[in-house]
Structure formats: C-alpha cells, structure tokens
C-alpha cells in the first residue's frame, strides 16, 4: 500500500493497544500537529485508525498565584505576623499586625478579606485576634498552589479538590484551560496494512513549473484539497445594475430596428416644449418642477423658419379645421434654457431634420438617456432619471401598429398582458397610458405613456407622415426587473456599495 508520507508516519507511530494523542505523535515524527491531524483523519476515513476527540482540562497559576506560592498567601502571612505579636493571647491593633506582616497595598485588603473566612482569627473594631488552633500548613489553598508551582503538567485537575480549585479561580490565582485532544489508535485493518507493508508515496501540495518541465508530475501524488470549503472572497469589477438594464433595453430596441439618438441635456424650451405643441401657459411649463437655468439663460440661435411655423401652429392649429391655443407666445420663453424635462426634446430635434438632416419614412429612433424633474426625492422619484424614448415614422401608422410595437417590446421583459388606457397628452392623439402586471406582486402598474404625434406638432417640423411614440422611466422598469423597492438604492451618490456588489446580474 502506498500512502502519502505523513500518513505512513502516523500509521507506523500509532499503537493498537493504547490511543496516542496527535501532539505526541507530531513530536515523535517531526511534523506539525495540523499535518498529523490531517493525516489521521485521512487514515480514519480509510478505516486504518480510529480518531477520538475528548476535552482535556489543565490548570496553571496566574502571576498572582505564582507570587503567593513563593511568598505565602497574604492571609497566612497576616496570621503569622499576628502570632508574632501575640494576637493569640491579646487582641492586637490592626496597624501593628500589618506593620509586622510587611503586607502593603492591595495585599492588605486581600489578607483581611480571607483571614476570617479561613478561620485564622477575627477582625473587629480595628483589632485583630489570631486563632491558635489554625494550622497554616493545612491550608488547602496554599497546598494546591504549592503543588501547581512545582509541576503543573504533572497535576491532573481531576485529582484536585474541585471546591478549592473553584475558590482559587475566583481569586484569580489559577486559570483553567480546555483543550481538544485527539487520540489515534490503530484498527485491525491498520495492523493488517502495516504487516502487509506500507510505503510512502510522493505527494505534492501544488503543481509546479519544475514538475511539468522535469516530468516529475507523473510520479507525484497530489494532496487532496477540501474542495467544499469556502475560499477567500474576491471582488469582481462590474457594470452598474441600472446600466445593465439600460443595455438590455438598448439591445431589444436595436433588435427591433431602432437607431439611437443623441443630443443636449441643457436645451431651449423651444425644443423641449414648444415643438411638442405644449402651450406656453401649460401648467407643466410654469410648474415648479421645471429645472430652469440661471446661467446660461438663453440659447443663441433657433431655426427662424421653424420657430415661425411652430408659433403659427400654437396660434392657429394645423389643417383646415384646426384650432390653436388661446395662449400667450413669447419667443424669449422659447429661447429660455432648462435641463430637459423629457428626452422628447431629442425626438423634436431629430424629426425637424435639425440634428441629422431630413428623415424620410420609414424610421425608428430611440434613446435611453437622462431627463430632469425638479421634484421632491422619495423612494420612487429622483431629480434625474433615465427616460426610454422611442418613435416610429412611417407613411401610415394606426393605433394597432402602436399596440403591436409596444406589446412586442414589453414581452421581452416578461410583461405579456399590456393594457392600453386612453389618455391625454398635448402632443399625441390618440394617447395611451400603458399598464402591465408586476411579474412578482401581481399589481397593475403604469409602465409607459404613448400615442400618435399630433398634426399640430408634425406639420411645423416638416413631417407629413405618421409618427407614433412612447416613453417610460428606465428606473421603473429596473425596479420591476430587480425587485428594488427604493430607487435611491439604484442611482446616485447615496448608493450603498454593498447593494451594487450584491445585485444580481441582468441579461
């Protein structure tokens, strides 16, 4: 039989008649105890030895205990001093006895507190008596200390008086230590194996380059690892969970034929709102949630002819039967800069031809970019959020096309029961809020807003075919997918790194 060298050594050193502890074996064969224990367990597994565990208690003196063993217990020294001044005849003053005992500091208190307890005499009203019949040589505490100081290892605590030991431990003169002791005993199979002959095999902890170059690996036995044990933690670099969701959305949209848009975050109200046929006195435009800029205040240039057409649509509407708004129009307000409240400003820039030139149908465009709302922050609202914005331009588009497109999109995220609730937006008609069932909670939740762009919006932009569009907050989708309940966990400087480190990957 070939075994790794430590196992051979342990097997040979073990006895069939009496268990031997791993530390004695370790000393005998010159290995460390952990190696011996490992080898013993391997042999136990193979049935060649029995390993038994028991707890062994040892006792050792503390520094204080050692000092008393040398100089005598303070109460004994006090008693001897008391005898010296004749306190067994007449009560002696405490000062006199203490002076004679040469005890000082804390030892005086210790001596006094144990003196009467152990029957050496009494202490009353500053006077001390000694009991002549007491015998310091019979002091069990002192004797135990003396025994321990001579050779603690040779003393088995079982042989000591448990009460005395407890008392000494309370006095912090001794310490008890528990130790697991493993003992190894040869089994019959082990004896048989030894008789048949056991030889050491070459084993190695690690595969090395030299083993490979020399070919020594062929003769090598590799030590087995505990492959079930936890390894030290390492930290992986990783993309942000919200970014993973955004990438997933982008993949889906690109797969559906959408091109990505790009444009300014700080933009003129003209692109953000006027081009969307939003009247200038619309509550959303004067509302406090708009992020107006103080610096810079106005855009330099707007395409003049486009501004004129948009203004006309606001005043007169579009088409023969169109009406406009009875709302004020101020070009200065059109030029006012703000952080875009929705990324539909990108759509107006693209549809107008201003961003990438005139677009001919068919087209599909999207973006997954930031929009800004001057809102109060809570677990579902942030000042900044990623808006998924998409639109389709074609000669003819119906509500059914819109429903088909969004049904397809949401199905990619496991939302298969899309509901279209008729809605109102100033820039789309018909308009729909999109509702879907939360895959986990089963609640019906709003997951987007959509519609077919109005003629009053498209005419001034120079688009004479149909365009349908929709938007939703990426964070809402992300919360759906990740189950996050607080949007602030996902996004911003308040983030908890552990949340990001433990977030499940999205793909």
């Amino acid at each position, binding site marked *: 039989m070939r075994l790794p060298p430590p196992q051979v050594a342990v097997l040979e050193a073990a006895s069939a008649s009496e268990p031997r502890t791993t530390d004695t074996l370790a000393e005998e064969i010159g290995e460390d105890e952990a190696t011996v224990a490992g080898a013993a367990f391997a042999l136990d597994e193979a049935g060649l030895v029995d390993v038994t565990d028991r707890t062994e208690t040892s006792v050792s003196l503390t520094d204080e205990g050692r000092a008393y063993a040398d100089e005598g217990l303070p109460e004994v020294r006090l008693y001897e001093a008391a005898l010296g001044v004749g306190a067994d005849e007449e009560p002696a003053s405490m000062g006199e006895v203490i002076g004679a005992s040469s005890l000082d500091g804390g030892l005086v208190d210790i001596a006094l507190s144990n003196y009467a307890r152990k029957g050496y005499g009494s202490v009353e009203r500053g006077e001390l008596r000694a009991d002549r019949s007491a015998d310091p040589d019979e002091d069990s505490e002192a004797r135990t200390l003396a025994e321990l100081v001579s050779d603690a290892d040779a003393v088995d605590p079982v042989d000591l008086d448990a009460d005395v030991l407890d008392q000494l431990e309370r006095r912090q003169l001794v310490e008890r230590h528990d130790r697991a002791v493993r003992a190894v005993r040869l089994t019959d199979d082990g004896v048989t194996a030894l008789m048949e002959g056991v030889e050491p095999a070459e084993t190695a902890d690690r595969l090395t380059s030299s083993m490979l170059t020399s070919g020594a690996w062929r003769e090598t036995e590799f030590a087995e690892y505990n492959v079930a044990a936890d390894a030290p933690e390492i930290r992986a670099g990783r993309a942000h969970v919200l970014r993973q969701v955004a990438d997933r959305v982008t993949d889906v949209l690109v797969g559906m034929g959408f091109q990505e848009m790009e444009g300014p975050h700080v933009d003129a109200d003209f692109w953000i709102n006027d081009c969307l046929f939003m009247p200038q006195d619309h509550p959303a435009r004067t509302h406090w949630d708009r992020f107006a800029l103080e610096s810079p205040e106005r855009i330099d240039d707007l395409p003049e002819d486009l501004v004129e057409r948009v203004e006309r649509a606001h005043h007169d509407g579009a088409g023969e039967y169109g009406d406009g708004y009875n709302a004020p129009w101020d070009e200065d307000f059109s030029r006012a800069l703000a952080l875009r409240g929705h990324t539909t400003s990108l759509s107006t820039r693209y549809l107008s031809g201003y961003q990438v030139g005139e677009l001919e149908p068919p087209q599909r465009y999207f973006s997954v970019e930031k929009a800004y709302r001057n809102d109060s922050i809570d677990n579902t609202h942030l000042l900044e959020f990623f808006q998924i914005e998409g639109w389709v331009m074609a000669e003819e588009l119906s509500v059914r096309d819109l429903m088909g497109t969004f049904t397809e999109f949401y199905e990619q995220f496991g939302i298969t029961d899309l509901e279209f609730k008729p809605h109102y937006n100033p820039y789309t008609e018909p308009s729909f809020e999109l509702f879907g069932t939360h895959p986990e909670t089963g609640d019906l939740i709003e997951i987007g807003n959509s519609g077919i762009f109005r003629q009053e919006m498209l005419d001034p932009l120079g688009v004479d075919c149909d365009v349908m569009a929709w938007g939703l907050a990426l964070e809402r989708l992300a919360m759906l997918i990740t189950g996050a309940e607080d949007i602030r966990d996902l996004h911003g400087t308040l983030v908890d*790194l552990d949340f990001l480190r433990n977030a499940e990957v999205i793909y």
Partner: protein
Amino acid sequence: MPTVEAHPDELRTLTGREDKDDDELRSDLFALGLEYEGETDDGAFELEFAPDRLDRLSVEGIARSLRYQYGEDRGVYVPRTNDPDWTIEVDPSVPSDRPYVTGAVARGVDLDDDALDSLIQLQEKLHATMGRRRVKGAIGIHDLTMLKGERLSEAAADGRTKSIRYVGVETDGDRFVPLDSERELTPGEVLEQHPTGREYADIVSAYERLPAIYDDIGLFSFPPVINGRRTEVSTDSRDLFVEMTGTDQRTIDEMLAIVCYALDARGATIEKVTVEYASGASGAHAGDSLVRPDLSTDEKRVTHEQIERTLGIDLTPEAVVDLLERSGLDGEPTDDAYDVMIPPYRVDVLHPQDLVDDVGRAYGFNELEPRYPDVGTVGGRHERSRLEGAVRNALVGLGFEETMNFHLIGRADNHDRMGVESGSEVVGGGEAATIAEPYSEEYEIVRTWALPSLMMVLEGNTHRSYPQNLAEIGLAAHLDDDENTGVAEWRTVAAVLARHDASYEDAKARLQALARTFGVELETPPTDHPTFLNGREAEVVIDGDSVGVIGEIHPEVLAEHDLELPVVAFEFRLDALR
C-alpha cells in the same frame, strides 16, 4: 393631473341609473379615464383624470359623460337660452391687463347642499386648470336677487335695462365687505389684509388699476380676487348671476359654457347677458356688443379615411355616425367624410384627430387587435454609446465597480470640497451651468467633472470593505460661449482606487492599460492641480491633447471627505479614446 370629487349617490340620481352599484360605477368611470383614487369622509369618490375633458370637473359633467356611455343620451345637446335682460357694461377704466368679461344668468336653479358644493368645486377646478390659477380666467357667481341694476337706458328698446358695470378702480377705492370678512375694506386693503387677497395679490400687482364690478348699490365683486358678501350664493339662492373676467375672451367664454351646462343639469334656465364694451375700452372687443353665453356648436370635418387609418380597422358610415353620437357628437356623412357637430363644452377639440379619438374610445381601444407594423428599418447604437460601452468593458476588466451618479451636484461638493476654484484652468475648474432657484444646496449646478461624485460615494461607504475601486462614465458640462446653448457637454471617464496601499503607480498602470486597449498614445507630464498631492499629479495627454488629470488625492481633500486611507484617481474625456 386634476382630481374631482363626485358622490356615487349624486351620479346615480343625475344619470337616472339607480341600479348601478359603487363597483360598477368605479369601473364605468375608469372606462371614461376617471381613475378612482379613494373616498372622502362622506363617501364621495375622489377621481383623477388627464386634463383634457375639463367639462368633467363637476359631478354634473361626469354624469353627462356616463349618460352617453350608458346610451341614455345620444348626440349633441344644447341648453335652451332666454333673451338677455341684463347687461355688463365695460368701462374704459378697466385695466388693460384684464380687459375681458363675460356672463350669464341662471334662473330657477335647484341648489341643495350637494349642488352648491359641486358648483363651488367646479369653480375652483376651472380656476386651477383653464383659468391658470385665475390669471387667465376667474369666475364670480352671485345671488341675482341681491343685485340692483334697474335703471333707465336710452339704448334699450323698451327704455329700461338692468346692468352691472365692469370698471377699473384705485387701490384706495370704494369699500366693500369681502367674503369671509366682517369689515368693509378697500381693494388695496383686501390685498394686504384678507387671506384670499394675499394669496392672489401677485396677479394684480402690476395692473395699473384694479378690476371691480359694480351694481347700483356699489362694488360687489373684486375679480380675480374675491366676491363681496352681499351677493354670496347660498342654498336659498334660486337665480344666479355668473360673471367671468380674464385675459382672453375665448377662454372665459369656454369656461362659462362649461358652468352653464352644469347649471342646466341642476334644472336652471339659462338667460343670456349682453356684454357691452365701451368704444374706449382696451382689448380686441372695444365698441363691441356680445351676447353671452355663446352656446353655439362648432363644426369640423373628419374624413372616413382618417378614422380608418388611425384606428386600423374598417367601419361602415352608419357605425361611425353611431360612435359619434355615443360620444355626444352629431355626424353628418358627406363625400367620404363627416361634418361633426361639437357642443360648446368640448373645449378640448382642436383638430379632427380629436374626434377620431372619440370614435376610438366609443368603439373601445382595447377591442383593437395589436399588430406589428410591417415597416423595415435598420437598428444601431450611436457611435458615442458604443465607445462608452467599450470603455466600460475595459474598466470592468480592470476590476472597477461602476457607479452611476447624479449630473446635478452642489457647488460645495463640485468645487470647494475638492479644493478647486470655479473659473480656474484646471480639470473640473470650469464655470458650471446653474439652476435658477434651486431647492437644495445639494443640487445647484450641473457637475463640471465626475471625480467629486466618486469622492462622495467613497465618503458614504467608509463602513464597506476595501479596496473600493470605483469608476463612472457620465456627463460633465461647463459654460462655453462658443456653444449654441452656452454649455459644452461631454462624457467623462473618472476612476478612484481607495485602499491602504494605493499609490500613483496603481492609477497610472490602469490608465496605461486603457490607453493600450484603445490604441492611443498616453503621456503624463507633471502638472499642478489643487485636488492632488504635489509631485504626484500629472496631466493626462492622449495623442498629444491634454484631456484629463491623474494623481494621488491631497490629504486635505481626503480629510474633507472623512477618508482615512489613500485614494488615487484619474479623470479624462471619453472622446479622447476615439
């Protein structure tokens, strides 16, 4: 979105459908786009809806829509109106900022507590929406019996008329007792002392004179602020005078139409009022005599093709007419199109497409079969976004944990706490685009670099295990006169390495790896940057252009962020790796 309260008992009474239980009503209302949000203490539904159908701001208007939905009513309904008895005379003194007025009389109205509450609610909701918080239009409703206006007039055919006068007055003009007050106050005192006056004082603060309405007894209304107590409406009122003033005649006329329909539903007979603008009055109607309310219908032509095209289904002309009538409209088929008659409360209809929407709602949009459009296009990412993705992959490969931080930041976080002065020439030192009237010092500007955001994440995570190797690719911006918007925006790549033995070399090694990955030439000549430790800071020069900074964060900046271990960092423009 606006909300409106409607008691289910009232809806049952007004629709004549006592058989509808609360659940059915809730579901019928949802189908109209009125979402049940909860109930008031006395059991009224709180309903939220999109702000287009403002005629549904009253329980009467909601009931009307339900009656069409139930088929109890069909087609256009216009209340009958009696000839005018009263006149509103518009004086040249009326402030030019608020030149317009309109009005109507409602007689025999049945005002119980519920009806009065509904009227008050309609008034408030119209103020908040069409009235643009009373700036564009404000409503005053008065008990007609309290008005004294009878006097001789040469203009009237029978030699007598009843009139009230819309005039402009000085702040210390005539006193009157406003609602919710015991004392006589001048208009100026109302603005200073009366709670409602203080609330709306800003609307009239720039007016050259204050608007006021008089009858023969004196001032009884101070629009758009408050009415007088003398003409206050109560459940005992049977005849009402409704006046509205504003900055736009059409808007107040439309608001008036909605109010008249609601009063008609409460059994009132609407009586017209003549509005006589003096020739010297300001505004577009000087010298005109208007008869109000204008309950005339509008007409728009919508083609059959447009309906079928938008809904994506085939319909017979009979079906279209039926759907129009179920929407409270009338449709007359003519030449592959329909002349559609629109009642005056439908102020939301601006375009034939709005009628197509009505047809679709009546048909039931959720009855339509979705279909994927048969349109072929080629998809793709923007070049910038592809580059960003590639850099992110490289950073993740280098062991960075990506963060996504806000683009908005406080001035202190962006500049001061980093030791950087706004307007200095260093990376991050640009002048920031600034938000007007920010609510919080934490979000005042658009960040000029991303490193401060990463430092804040480190600051907030000192209880988490190290190393913390964080990166972000995100927006940064600063003022730039050469840009059309006045703001230069770019994507920036920022990274920090925080651990007990972080050194300059650790940052440089990773930056080198990035440069090599993207095939660009990297140089790091020494520089001065106040965020970094002297002698351990360098310019990031890529292909000869200075694009960023790298170094060990200055201990002062670390201490400012409560960090007790070294941090090394770099930041540079994303487009440098193109």
